[in-house]
């Protein structure tokens, strides 16, 4: 099992440059992020303001003040680094695709996660795979990518520090399980986004005829005599599951977005980037 997961990690890591490239391209297309828009500790110039008596002489910006008759103080923009932690569902059903032409759900999740990580790292935040030490700076994304590929935790564990979590999964496990997991995270002070990625076949159910459906692990299976007749019932169940998932996530402070692997990743990425930066990232 360990060997297998290592092999899978190696296979995915072999494609890591491609994934990183895709993620950077995605991030490059995103609208530029701005800073905190508040004066604070930081390096970027924020504004000049009039010198006040309590400031003392040391804070006077003499170069600016020499041009006029008033004294100015240079303020810098506040820069407070946030932690962004990513988690990918290691479930084998997540690393699956219905068609050779499509990426697997896990790969698409990796691309989205790393694109967000790139974007955040560019904004000066600290990014990491959930459970791995956080880092800042330009190498943080590469490290996060390696950690993400190696990440094998079956459920997202609560981060040690306050962090924004980005959870990517197909969320097909029962609602109760997810409620428990999200509640634990929420209790630890984490919030963030759930990216629900699905394969088109899982939504459209394009099967017909006598079909035996089984999981990749092969534990469960079901035979349908006329699969096409199960399409509507399945669609209803799927919709109900998603509805429940969405309401539960909102209640626990998580944003839930859905994405199909046959759709381009840019819109959902833009949505995530905008939503997360509003939440303080």
């Amino acid at each position, binding site marked *: 099992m360990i060997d297998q997961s290592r092999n899978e990690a190696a296979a995915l890591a072999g494609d890591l440059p491609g994934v990183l490239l895709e993620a950077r391209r995605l991030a490059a297309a995103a609208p530029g992020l701005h800073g905190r828009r508040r004066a604070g500790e930081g390096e970027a110039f924020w504004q000049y303001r009039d010198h006040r008596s309590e400031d003392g002489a040391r804070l006077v910006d003499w170069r600016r003040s020499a041009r006029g008759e008033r004294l100015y103080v240079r303020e810098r923009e506040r820069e407070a680094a946030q932690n962004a932690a990513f988690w990918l569902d290691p*479930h084998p*059903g*997540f690393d*699956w695709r219905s068609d050779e032409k499509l990426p697997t759900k896990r790969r698409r999740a990796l691309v989205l996660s790393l694109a967000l990580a790139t974007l955040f790292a560019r904004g000066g935040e600290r990014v990491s795979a959930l459970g791995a030490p956080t880092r800042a700076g330009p190498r943080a994304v590469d490290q996060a990518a390696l950690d993400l590929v190696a990440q094998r935790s079956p459920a997202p564990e609560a981060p040690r520090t306050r962090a924004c979590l980005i959870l990517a999964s*197909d969320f*097909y*496990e*029962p609602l109760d399980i997810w409620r428990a997991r999200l509640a634990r995270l929420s209790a630890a002070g984490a919030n963030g986004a759930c990216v629900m990625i*699905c*394969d088109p*076949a*899982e939504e459209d159910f394009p*099967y*017909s*005829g*006598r*079909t*035996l*459906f*089984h*999981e*990749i692990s092969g534990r*469960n*299976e*079901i*035979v*349908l*005599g*006329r*699969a*096409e*007749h*199960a399409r509507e*019932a*399945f669609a209803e*169940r*799927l919709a109900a*599951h998603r509805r429940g998932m969405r309401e539960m996530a909102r209640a626990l402070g998580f944003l839930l977005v859905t994405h199909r692997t046959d759709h381009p990743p840019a819109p959902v990425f833009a949505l995530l980037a905008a939503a997360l930066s509003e939440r303080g990232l």
Partner: protein
Amino acid sequence: MTWGPITFGAPLALWALASLPVLFLILRATPPAPQRRVFPPLRLLLGLQTDEQSRERAPLWLVLLRALMCALAIIGFARPSLTPEAAAEAQTRGGRTLIVIDDGWTSAPFWAQARAAALDAVAEAERGGGQIFVLHTAPARIPRDAGEAFTPGEARGHFNALEPQPWRVDRAAAAGRIQSVPGRFDRILWIANGLDDEGAQALASALTAKGAVTARMPARTARAVVGASVGADGVTAELRRAQTSSDVGAVTAETAEGRSLGAAEFRFTGESAIARIDLPPEIAARTARVRIVGEDSAGAVRLMPGGAARPTVGLVDPGGQGQPLLSDLFYVDRALSPYASLRRGDVGDLVRRRVQAMVLADASRIAPADRDALTRWIERGGVLIRFAGPRLANDADDLLPVRLRPGSRTIGGALAWERPQHVRPFAANSPFAGLAIPEDVAVRRQVLAEPSAETESRVWARLEDGAPVVTAQAQGRGLIVLYHVTAGPAWSDLPLSGLYVEMLRRTIAFAGRGGESEERPDASGPYVATRLMDGFGALSPADADAAAIDAEAFASARAGPAAPPGFYERAGIAATLDAAGADERLAPLALPSSIARAGLEGARVRPLSGLFLGAAAALLALDLLLSLWLAGRMPRLARAGGAALAIIAALILAPPAFAQDDPTLQLHLAYVRTGDAATDRIARDGLEALTETLRSRTTVEPEAPIGVDLARDDLSVYPFIYWPAPPAPRPLSNEAVANLDRYLRLGGMVLVDTRDAGRRAAGNRGPAAIMLAGLDAPPLEPIDADHVLARSFYLLRAFPGRASAPRLWGESAGAASARDGVASLFVGDGDWAAAWASEGGSGLSGGPRQRELSLRFGVNLVMVALTGNYKEDQVHVPALLERLGRERR
């Protein structure tokens, strides 16, 4: 095993049918395997049920289908066959089968049916399992032992190799042979030819004594050509038949090489008929055989000895090598060598070598010994062709058709009043009738016949003044022909003309026509076969060991194993032996009522295995499709199948692209087909001349010009289109306007030629206005010597066409700026195509020089079309030079 009309070859295989119920149960219990799919959100499916939730059993109809498929396959492997007659006939296992077959030429016309009947009988005997005996009724050199039994395989090989003999059957002898075979037969099949002969009753009674006989006879019996002769008006064939044969048909006369000379239809009223094939005598003489069309049998062919080969003509050569062009025999040799085998020698030698005709050119004295031999040779049918000459004129002998006056007559010449005489058109009864007489053939000198009543009847050709120039006289069966001029051109122009050849050909056509096949008292040795006929009437070279027939026996010989029909030769003389004698008797076969009769046609065993196995295979294919459908894989298959079908249909329906002349592979100049034939022709001729000029002077090498239809053709492949105005121009259709617009926008070039230089009154609505109506025509400007058109290849000052100084307008450079200033539309009135097409400038006011200039204009035009403004820079050269000069100062 037989079940009704169906016979099973391997009935044991039918036991497998007993296993069908077990198979049925197994199939019923085995549901079709489902397709397996990975589905991660399986949890959402759990507990879901479809209306046909679990198909544990295959549907009944599918099981029935598969059981039917198996049943069909089992029946197919049992080798069933449909034999309607076998059911009717008594089926006895084992036993002896006798197959009697008439294998003379009278069976050849329907031999395929006869062979099939024999093979059917073999197959039937094989199913019954037993011995097969075969009796041939045609005589053979070594008759087969009728008591020798065949296995079915041997019998099949025997009949497949059996061919009809080129003689008739001898049933009396066959009856004797079968009587010597002991024992009775269980089945006797007589494949008869339907014709009676003296032994038929004997054979019938001999066969009925041996067992139950079934006779199978053809619907139409054979016919024969029993005589043929070559007459003055063609070939006459005598035909005979029995009442049971067809009463209409056609005969054809053929050469030895098999070329048909002529044909005629015939219709029997009684038992014989006459057919006449109208042919000129010299062509009829080449007939080597006469045969009935469409009836391949030796009896339907009559061989003709006369046409068997080219006549052998001897040239009496006095010896001594003179100058060849002055030798008389040289001309005879050249005239006759294509049509006859020529031999040279003295008279005695040639007579001994049995030439059929002899040419004697101005020999005066014939040695007495030779003379007697020559006379006898003529009496037997030899054709002596003599030519006059100085020696004959001096001293005539009596081997001549007419008596000659001593001396010769000189016509024309310095001291004579008369002019050289021409040959008078041949009389209708002359063998030369119909030959065309060249006007330049004149006779300057000849020997003269003594006028007499006899002489008149012997004349074949006369001069214009009535003097005989060719006379002939039959002597015995032979013929003496005298040409009253020399064989060489000394006395007349005749030997230099084609008429000479034709006259000699017609003369030697008489050779070999006399009864050469009659035996000769002084001939020696037997007749040796050269080419022999097979039963179908086809000739093939005789084997070296072919039978020789004694001369005495030959005349009375009848075709048989000892005397196979064909061409024979004896001492160089061809003779023939025919399969059907002159007294051939053909009568319907009358059989005693104890013999059952059947036709030759039909009654074939039809094997059904293929049918059953094919049906099983078709069901298998259907089952495959149904299984796919049940498994839910059909939709994709249907799509793929549809695509495959579409591809196949496209491949089948797509026109063979390379079979057509693809204009994109080669450069072609094009002109617009205006619908006016004269205009189109001038345009095509003009462009052809321009193409020729381009090919010879430039590296532009266009192929032949092409006429285009503006409305329909794809113009984009032509760089240059010439559009002449027809006498009555009409506006273009909408499609044509759109097409032409597109072409001009793409960068094509059109020269519109109104062809009316100097004719049109100014201000009138001219042809160009009509032709270009509706077109998105660009603004035009007059073209002068500064335009690139004036320097793209040749340096021109004007652009003459048929008119010496036409007006020429082109698209203005400003309007053409999108194409870098290259004009796409030129309009002029020069009628250039007419100038290009004119022969050496005829009809042009400026003569050849004007045509040359117009061609130069054409070359420049094509260059502009191909290279655009490549030479435009030249326009600026003076300015550049001037500027350079200024700077230097």
